[in-house]
Structure formats: structure tokens, C-alpha cells
């Protein structure tokens, strides 16, 4: 019965068109929703008994460019990695100072140097001796501040690792729950696009923490691995373990006891080096900050502090000082021992013998730390020697520097320059990573909702709806004619 089948076809056309309108309205409504992938109604010609019987809906097609998505996620991880490192390096540069900043270590050192020169010119002047003490204090307080900043950055990194591990764990559980939901709904033949969107959004959220590889399994399931090969979600989510350390001092490292690493389902994994499976995202970068970059910066600072202490602890410098007694700069009041190098920059103090605020006297800067009574006020021999000790060249006792003789100012300049070059190369890396992420995100955005295109489709939907309705009207008229024939 062909008229009836025409009616059927027209009806199926109407249904398909209204479905398209429905999906289109959803697309337009979600034009700016992050993670929303454009949908389309899949249509095919319905075939019944070998002949065409209108249109049928094959399903809802969700447009996702999977390779692009994977690339963007990797770029996201790389960007997070580079920017975490770069922002730490910039912080170190800020805390040590540049030639522009008045409070930089180099400026404090120059002031101390000049104060010694002036005191040697007027050794009897209490004001000039006081200025030597004040500038020496300012120099060590600059080092202490830098140490505190670096250790605070380590603590912040440690806390952020804990936060990110928490986010990873909770997100992996949510993704797992969605996997379970999708399994039951996919079988029931429903539109699961919204669930897929949600799952994609969740995975995107953790993609900057570790570089992820998503592997599709049957029935809309996914498994997640890190790029380094560690499974995060395979059937069941992996439990990632980390214990936060609230207070971190310069001598604490992961290698020695004190700081936590990462465990996957209770099994410890490397957090650095080529075998580590978690590197490449912000998590790996935070571990690098906590365990490598910060300790490196602190090591430089400690080497500088040690050099300063040792320059003024030379036994030939001040004959009044008892052998083994601390020099002008002390390790928290005591003489410095080479085994205590870690964190010395934060513990430097001025010898209390010269500090009137600590019961000492300024004249000991001029007459010697062990001087019991004031010597001739015009004797600048020791002050000249102190200036010589500061400006003379000597070999560094600490490791990690190229061999050679350096003045203290030369060492300071070297460390500041090194910090700045590291920051610059970190920023260059970050600029590259973020340019790549931007490019990929742009490509992804191009695949997003185009309202103009949706409007065009709306025009065709309108037209098709009207056409189908018209067909129904015509069929009705045809049927009416047939009915009138019978009367």
C-alpha cells in the first residue's frame, strides 16, 4: 500500500527532523561549554522488505578528533611541567636579586665591601664600624631570606604534590564510576554522549598533572596509562600514595630519609630519572622542584655562605682569635664545620663579640675578635685585612663549581648569572610548550561548535520539516480523494 508507506516515510522524516532540531539546540546551548563535543544525528535510509521506507536514525554521532585530543593532553602536561619549573626558577632569581633590585645579594655585598673600605679609612669612627656590622648583617639576612624562600618553595611544592595526588585519586575514581555507568547504558542503546563528555572533561582535568595515554576498550570503556607506562586506571583505579611533609629544612632530601615519594597501589616508583613513570606533567615538575631544582639553588647559596665564613675564619687573619673559635661569621654562633654545609646560608650569624646588641663591642671589628680591651683607635690593619679577605681570590671548598680561584664578588656574580640563565632557558622551554599547547587548543576549538553552521542546519531543518509536513498534507488530500470516490 504505497500511499500508507508515503505517509510513514513522511512521518519518519518529521521524527528525524525534530530529532535533528533537538540535537542542534543542544549544540547551540553548549557552544561555550568546555569539553562539549559537537553531536550530529546519524541518518540512514530505512529499508523494509527490500524497498525504501523513509528515514531512520542510526544514532547520535559525537565528533571528537581523538589523535588531536591525545596530542593536546600531552601538550597540556608538557606545558604544566615547563611552567611549574619556570615559575620556580623565576622565584629563585627574584629572591637572589638582579642588578636592578636594590636588595639583591650583590648589592648587599657591595655595601659591605664599601663599608669595610670606609672603616679602614676612619677606623676610630664608631659610625663606620657600626656600618660594617649593619651591612654584614644585611648580607647574611639576604642569604637567610633566600634560604627561607627556597625552602618555602619546597614546602609549597610538597603541599601541591599532595593536592595533585588527591585530585588524581578522586578523579580516577570518578572516571571509573563513569566507566561503569557507560557499560550499563551503552548496552541499553541510549544516548551516552553526555557521559562521554563528562568523562573527557575529567580526564582533561588530570592531563596536566601526568602525561596520559587513553586506551579505548570495548563498550565505551577507557583505560588510562601514564606516558611512562604506569597504569592509572585499568579495570580498577590505581591508588596513588603520597605523604605530605609540613616542614622541610635544607638538609632534608628524598634520598636521605624525610621526604615522601610516590607509591602506586603501595608500590614505590621513581620520581625522577629516566625510569620514572610519572614525569612529564606538573607532578613530575613539582618533584623536580622539591628534590632537584630547589636543592641545587640551595647548594649554590650554601657554597656562597661557606665561602664567606671560611674567608673570615682564616687563622692568619686575626691573631687575637683563639684557634678553632668562630670567625666574624658563625654557624648559628658556633664555628663552621664542613659537614654542616647543607643549609648554612640560613644559619649564618654575626659573631656576638662584635655586636653591641648581643653584649659585644664594635671595637673588636678593628682590634680583633679576641681583643679584651680597645687598642689604638687609628689602627686599620685588621680592617684592611678583612677587606682583603673579602676581595681576595681563593678556591671554593664546596663541590659543584668549575675549578678556579674566585673573589667573593665574582662568586656572587657567577651564582646570580647562573640563576638568571636558568630562568631564561626555563622560560624559553615554557614559551615553546605553551605555544604548542595554544596551537593544539586552537585546532580543537576549530572543531567546536560553529553557531553559523548550526543556523544553516536550522534553515535546512525548517525546510525539511515543512516539506515532510507538506507530504503528509498531500497524502491526506490523496486519501480524501479516495474516500470521496467511494461516496
Amino acid at each position, binding site marked *: 500500500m504505497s500511499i500508507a508507506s508515503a505517509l510513514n516515510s513522511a512521518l519518519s522524516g518529521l521524527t528525524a527532523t525534530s530529532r535533528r532540531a533537538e540535537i542542534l539546540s543542544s549544540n547551540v546551548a553548549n557552544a561555550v561549554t568546555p569539553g562539549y563535543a559537537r553531536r550530529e544525528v546519524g541518518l540512514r535510509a530505512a529499508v523494509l522488505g527490500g524497498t525504501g521506507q523513509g528515514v531512520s536514525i542510526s544514532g547520535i554521532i559525537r565528533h571528537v578528533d581523538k589523535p588531536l585530543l591525545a596530542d593536546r593532553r600531552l601538550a597540556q602536561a608538557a606545558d604544566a611541567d615547563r611552567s611549574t619549573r619556570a615559575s620556580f626558577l623565576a622565584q629563585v632569581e627574584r629572591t637572589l636579586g638582579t*642588578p636592578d633590585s636594590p636588595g639583591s645579594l650583590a648589592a648587599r655585598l657591595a655595601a659591605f665591601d664599601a663599608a669595610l673600605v*670606609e672603616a679602614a679609612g676612619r677606623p676610630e669612627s664608631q659610625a663606620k664600624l657600626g656600618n660594617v656590622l649593619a651591612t654584614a648583617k644585611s648580607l647574611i639576612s639576604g642569604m637567610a631570606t633566600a634560604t627561607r624562600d627556597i625552602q618555602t618553595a619546597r614546602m609549597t611544592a610538597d603541599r601541591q604534590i599532595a593536592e595533585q595526588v588527591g585530585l588524581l585519586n578522586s578523579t580516577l575514581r570518578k572516571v571509573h564510576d563513569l566507566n561503569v555507568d557507560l557499560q550499563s547504558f551503552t548496552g541499553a542503546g541510549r544516548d551516552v554522549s553526555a557521559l562521554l563528555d563528562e568523562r573527557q572533561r575529567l580526564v582533561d582535568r588530570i592531563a596536566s598533572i601526568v602525561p596520559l595515554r587513553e586506551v579505548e576498550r570495548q563498550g565505551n570503556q577507557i583505560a588510562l596509562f601514564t606516558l611512562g607506562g604506569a597504569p592509572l586506571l585499568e579495570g580498577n583505579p590505581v591508588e596513588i600514595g603520597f605523604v605530605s611533609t609540613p616542614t622541610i629544612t635544607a638538609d632534608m632530601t628524598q634520598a636521605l630519609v624525610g621526604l615522601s615519594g610516590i607509591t602506586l597501589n603501595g608500590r614505590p616508583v621513581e620520581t625522577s630519572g629516566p625510569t620514572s613513570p610519572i614525569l612529564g606533567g606538573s607532578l613530575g615538575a613539582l618533584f623536580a622542584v622539591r628534590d632537584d631544582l630547589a636543592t641545587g639553588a640551595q647548594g649554590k647559596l650554601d657554597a656562597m655562605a661557606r665561602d664567606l665564613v671560611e674567608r673570615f675564619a682564616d687563622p692568619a687573619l686575626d691573631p687575637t682569635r683563639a684557634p678553632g673559635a668562630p670567625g666574624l661569621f658563625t654557624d648559628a654562633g658556633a664555628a663552621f664545620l664542613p659537614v654542616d654545609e647543607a643549609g648554612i646560608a640560613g644559619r649564618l650569624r654575626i659573631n656576638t663579640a662584635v655586636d653591641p646588641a648581643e653584649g659585644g663591642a664594635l671595637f673588636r671589628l678593628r682590634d680583633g675578635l679576641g681583643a679584651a680591651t680597645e687598642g689604638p683607635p*687609628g689602627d686599620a690593619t685588621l680592617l684592611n685585612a678583612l677587606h682583603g679577605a673579602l676581595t681576595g681570590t681563593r678556591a671554593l671548598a664546596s663541590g659543584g663549581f668549575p675549578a678556579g680561584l674566585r673573589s667573593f664578588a665574582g662568586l656572587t*656574580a657567577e651564582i646570580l648569572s647562573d640563576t638568571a640563565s*636558568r630562568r631564561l632557558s626555563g622560560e624559553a622551554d615554557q614559551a615553546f610548550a605553551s605555544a604548542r599547547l595554544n596551537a593544539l587548543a586552537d585546532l580543537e576549538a576549530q572543531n567546536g*561548535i*560553529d553557531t553559523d553552521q548550526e543556523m544553516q542546519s536550522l534553515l535546512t531543518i525548517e525546510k525539511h520539516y515543512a516539506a515532510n509536513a507538506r507530504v503528509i498534507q498531500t497524502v491526506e488530500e490523496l486519501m480524501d480523494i479516495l474516500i470521496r470516490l467511494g461516496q
Partner: protein
Amino acid sequence: MTRVSVGDASLANLLARQGAQLRAGVNRAAAEIASGRPTDIGQALRGDFSPLLALDASLTRLKAYARNAGEAGLYAASQQAAIRGLSSLASGLGSTIMRSKDLVTPAQVDVFGSDARGRLASAIGMLNAQPAGRAVFSGMASGTLPLGAAEDMLDALQTAAAGATTASQVASAVADWFSSATGYGAFYQGAGPLTSPPIAPGETADLSVTANDPVIKETLMGFALGALLDRGVLFGVPEERADLAQRAGETLQRSQDGRITLAARIGTVEAQIEAATTRNSAEETALGILRSEQGSVDPYEAATRLEELRSQLESLYLITARVSRLSLVDYLR
């Protein structure tokens, strides 16, 4: 069917990013023009701070040297003034007695004696000068006056010369007192020579003259010999008194060459300090110029950059406005 489409978000992202980049550039250029310094000195110097830090340290140190040189200059000038004063005191006294060589009456000797006593007090006062609170002839003991009162010196000398009956005995007792460690050596309250203060990089000023200097000692001895006459030494022996006055005049005359040499020595140091000051300030100027070249931006370049960014940003605003109005929805009525 493949349909070519570009998502709405793409254009919005692009415009927002371009806008943010341009605005950051504008901020940067504006800050650089306003401050004259690059916003990122690390980048401007490609991470090598060593030359700039060395410049900064030198500039700071040169300021300290300039202050030192100023103080050393004052010290040397005070010494010079005192030596000049000593010379004029000595030549005044020495020439009176030389002129009256042939007719030395007891009255003249008395006048000479009291004149010498006054001049000794003046000479010691000059050597005790304390410009800016520093005793300039005390050496390292700059807080202590180098010499005590003239009368104390004369008391000691009188004790030393007690029992002397001839002018030559008195003269040798006085000479012994001046060369002995318990005599003038104890009367001199100062310490060893002052440590040479640094006045320029690697250069010190030699300010080692103290009241213990042989020339100064000899001059004081001349005055002291005359002053002893006023104290009544060799009383009642007019010939010997005249002889002692003669010896006092000769000693003062003899020490004149020494004083000139001493003044020349201090003058050399003064000239050296002067030269160091000039050199320091020239170096400071030169380094200052170098510093401003190294750590500053070319204002012309920064202004050009700002102008370029401004026009780019304006074009971007225009494009944003135009493109945002382009929507099919507006035309579907």
C-alpha cells in the same frame, strides 16, 4: 559529507590571546620608557650579570674611596698647616738670636727666654690640633692628644738638667731627654704611625708623620732650650745663658731643612690624595656612563615599539568589533 566549519571558540580564543599579548607588550614598553630600564634585565643581558655587577660594585666602592680620600686630605692638610706654623714660629725665634749675635745682653737673653717659652706652648698647641676629632700627630692613637702641656715638658727638662753648670751640659741633658724612651718617648702620648687609609683602588695614602718625628723633636728641643732660660736655668751665669740661647737658635735654624723636607713629604701625600680624588671621580663618571649604557633601554627603540604595538592593538580592537558582529543569527529574520 565533510563540512568545513570553524568553531566559535576558536576565533574568540585567538582574539583574546592576541589582545593579551599586545597589552602585555604595551605595558612592558610603557614601563621601559618610563623607567629607562629594561623590564627584564636578565634577558637584556642574556643572563650574564658579571660585568654589570662588577660595575655596580666598583661604583659603590669608589664612593667609599672618595669619602676616605676626603678625610685623608683633611688629615694631611692639618698636618701641613701645623708644620707650616712650627716653621714660622721657629724662624721667628731663630733669626732674633742670630741677628743679635754680637750683642747679647742679659736682658736680651731674658726676653729671648720668655719668647721661646711662649712659642713652645704654641708649637705644642699646633701639634695637638684635632680637626674633626682626630689628633693628627698621635698616629694610631687618634683619640689621644700627642703631647702634654709645655710646662710639664719644662718641668721634666729642668729635672733632667738639674746640676748642670754649663750651657753644653744643659744642652746635652736636654738632647738626652728628647732621645730617651722615658723622656720624650713617655711625654709623647700617641702611638705608632697611622695605618695608611685606602684612597683609591689598590692605593693608600701614607699619613705616618707623628709628633715623634725627629724633625718635630728637634724643633721642640730648640724651643725648649730657649724656654729653659725663662725657667731660670744657669741663673747667675750670664755667659752660659747667652751660650744656651745661642744653641737654642742654632738648633732651630738647623732643623729648618728637616721641616722643609717634612712639609714636602706631606705635600707629596696631599698631591697624591688630590690626584686619587680626581682619578676616582673620573673613573666614577666613566663607569656611570658604562653602567647606563649596559643596563638601560634605547628610548627611541622603546617608543617606536610602543607606537607599533598601539597601532596593532587598535587594529585588533577594530577587528574584534567587526568580527563579533558577523553572525548568521543577525541576518535570519
